[in-house]
């Protein structure tokens, strides 16, 4: 999936996030773009990937023809197990989450606010929603990193002063990787950690619904 426009590709966004993983961390990756983090080679550091369905220590996607249909990650993909893996039931898996053992959870989001609130479970017009494990992870992981597009398809900012959509958790996000760069919500705005190649500051500022800080 090559992206002709300036800015980070999805894989590059995942690389920026994975670059922050520290050796020995227990990492939970959400469905979609966050799963790309597990493709990133972060050697010599090693992390343990936890999946909400109780799989601790999973590895790459299984090669075609070698799938175990009883082994999936949170996105339903047939993964493999690394040496030292373990499987627990759902209540124990969320005890791991609620008990504060997850060093970072990486999720997608519709919106994130300068105060660190974020929304990723319900769109405005929908009656239902998809919470899954996101609220447990967001409330209880030590860190919440987001991987998301900087703006909607119609150009509306997703990095905003206040979330308009129903939030998943408040004041929890510490890092946001988008196609335009890497940012940290710091209350009065988003601090720029890095701008993607070919993205001028004023382009990023125009696409952001809150103040950008250097």
């Amino acid at each position, binding site marked *: *999936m090559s992206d002709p426009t300036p800015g980070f590709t999805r894989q590059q966004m995942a690389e920026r996030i994975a670059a922050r993983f520290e050796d020995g961390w227990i990492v939970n990756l959400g*469905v*979609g773009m966050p799963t790309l983090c597990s493709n990133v080679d972060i050697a010599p550091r090693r992390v343990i990937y936890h*999946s*909400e*369905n*109780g*799989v601790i220590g999973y590895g790459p996607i299984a090669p075609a023809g070698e*799938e*175990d*249909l*009883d*082994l*999936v990650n949170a996105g*339903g*993909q*047939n993964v493999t*197990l690394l040496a030292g893996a373990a*499987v*627990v*039931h*759902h*209540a124990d*898996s*969320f005890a791991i*989450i*609620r008990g504060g053992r997850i060093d970072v959870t990486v999720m997608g989001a*519709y919106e994130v606010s300068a105060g660190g*609130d974020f929304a990723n479970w*319900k*769109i405005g017009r*929908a*009656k*239902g*929603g*998809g*919470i*899954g*494990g*996101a*609220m*447990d992870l967001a*409330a*209880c992981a030590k860190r919440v990193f987001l991987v998301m597009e900087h703006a909607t398809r119609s150009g509306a900012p997703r990095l905003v002063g206040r979330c308009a959509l*129903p*939030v*998943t*958790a*408040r004041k929890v996000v510490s890092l946001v990787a988008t196609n335009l760069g890497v940012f940290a919500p710091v209350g009065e705005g988003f601090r720029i950690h890095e701008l993607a190649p070919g993205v001028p500051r004023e382009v990023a500022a125009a696409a952001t619904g809150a103040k950008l800080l250097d």
Partner: protein
Amino acid sequence: MTDKLRPDFAAAIADIPDGATIAFAGFGMPGTPFNLIAALVEQGARNLTLIANTTGGAQQPRMPDIGMLVERGRVRKVICAFTAATRASDVLPFTKHYEAGEVAAELVPQGTLAERLRAAGAGIPAFYTPTAVGTELAEGRERRFFNGREYLLEHALAVDYAFLRARRADAFGNLQFHRSQRNFNPVMAMAARIAIAEIEEPILPPGTIDPDAVHTPGIFIHRLVQIPPPPLGLWPQKRQERAPR
């Protein structure tokens, strides 16, 4: 000892009455009791309250799911961690019926759902959790601070029946799961008055499974059904990947 083995899926669920509350294990394909769900679609009980991770219908090929009971007008309410698809652009079969007001839904964070079931099985009527604090789900809910942090009160979720699937069982109902098949199975077994498990491998004589290696003890399991080989029995299928957006 009561014989737990039932000759087929229809016999295992024949007594389920209108108005029953039923929990369905499974996360994605693994550990989902496809055969028992298919039998319930045929059985005809109505006005049901159904508990599962999702309402079903998001993955292809579509296997038996609780959405099929909703589509037949047999469900009063669902309690799920997903009442919409994870991708906003996807529409679940459930959605049309939900938006038309034909079925009620309670949306519960997944960890809270698992713990409410576990609590019911463990004799704990309610508990406090930090999950969902500050969100729409916290509205009207009892709050309490412990050590300076805010928590919400959640109530145990007991069920009449649980539908389960396991790799291996002995005739006492001691269960072993394979890989992520375990998911909700153990806590739903605990939460149920009557737990019914469909079993993949030939059911073993008692004493064959090492007691140290039992995942769910047979005291929680009331009925067992052997899954026939395909095409008579339903087995997990390889998921068809959709084109990227």
